[in-house]
């Protein structure tokens, strides 16, 4: 009898706990604002106070209060505002250089390294490196003169 009466109470408590944990903030507005853009302003959301940024902040605050995770909030922002809301350059116009310049730099570095290795293998020694063996000619004479001055 007692167990039967307690059953609805336990169920209600479990529901309450589940709801509370679902709505508990998993991230903060400040954290999100530091990682996403205000697309109109072209700055981080936390640095802008424009009307568009204020609406975006209110939207983020609503999602944080609903217990959404950081990834879920970013997905929702992309759905609403497009990919430019993420702090990533676009793959067009001037922003394209953000992707292409490092790529070109890597290719140029690989080509230069390849040429250097080929040259080093042909000559048998690293280019412009120190030459092995005893000094010859004028160098040998100067060495002898120096050594004779310090008669050890």
């Amino acid at each position, binding site marked *: 009898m007692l167990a039967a009466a307690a059953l609805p109470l336990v169920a209600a408590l479990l529901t309450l706990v589940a709801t509370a944990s679902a709505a508990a903030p998993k991230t903060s507005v400040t954290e999100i604002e530091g990682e996403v853009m205000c697309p*109109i302003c072209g700055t981080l959301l936390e640095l802008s106070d424009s*009307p568009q940024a204020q609406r975006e902040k209110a939207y983020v605050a609503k999602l944080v209060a609903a217990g959404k995770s950081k990834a879920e909030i970013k997905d929702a922002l992309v759905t*609403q*505002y497009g990919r430019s809301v993420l702090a990533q350059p676009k793959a067009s116009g001037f922003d394209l250089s953000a992707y292409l310049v490092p790529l070109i730099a890597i290719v140029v570095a690989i080509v230069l390294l390849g040429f250097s290795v080929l040259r080093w293998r042909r000559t048998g020694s690293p280019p412009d490196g120190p030459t092995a063996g005893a000094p010859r000619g004028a160098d040998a004479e100067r060495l002898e003169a120096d050594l004779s001055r310090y008669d050890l």
Partner: protein
Amino acid sequence: MLAVIGLLGFGLLSKGRAKIAVGDPVPDKVLPALPGPGRGSIAEHRGEWALVNLWASWCIPCRQEAPVLERFYRRNRAHNVTVIGIDVEDNRDDAVAFLHEHPTTYPQLRSVGDERSAAFGSSGVPENFLVDPEGRLALIWRGPVDEALLRRRVEPLIRGRARH
């Protein structure tokens, strides 16, 4: 090094925004309707004059402009003229709330992010584009419109064409 400098130069010259001019075909795309359901496009209004209005809920001049556009629409609807609102750089809930606050009877579409703004070479909201019945741009007005401007600049274009 020269390639890198060239790339940077090219990037600076092409900002990724379309350049459109009077006489060009209007940039168009099928978009979700606001508040929905359904979808729509400017092409569906081919054969009519269409005043395309880019707006956003956070845009303060758009609040004054919405009732002006609604009056223009009602005044000219019988003459084969429509207004098409495109909500840009906005979130849907705010856009729907804006339409509750400033009700319009003309078609409203929604563009995610700045995709449509970029297509129209837009630098802000509101901006207005008059499209002739053949789907070409007849007037580009980068800013809010008011009654005086609509009567002085837009309606003569529509009537002028209607006489031919």
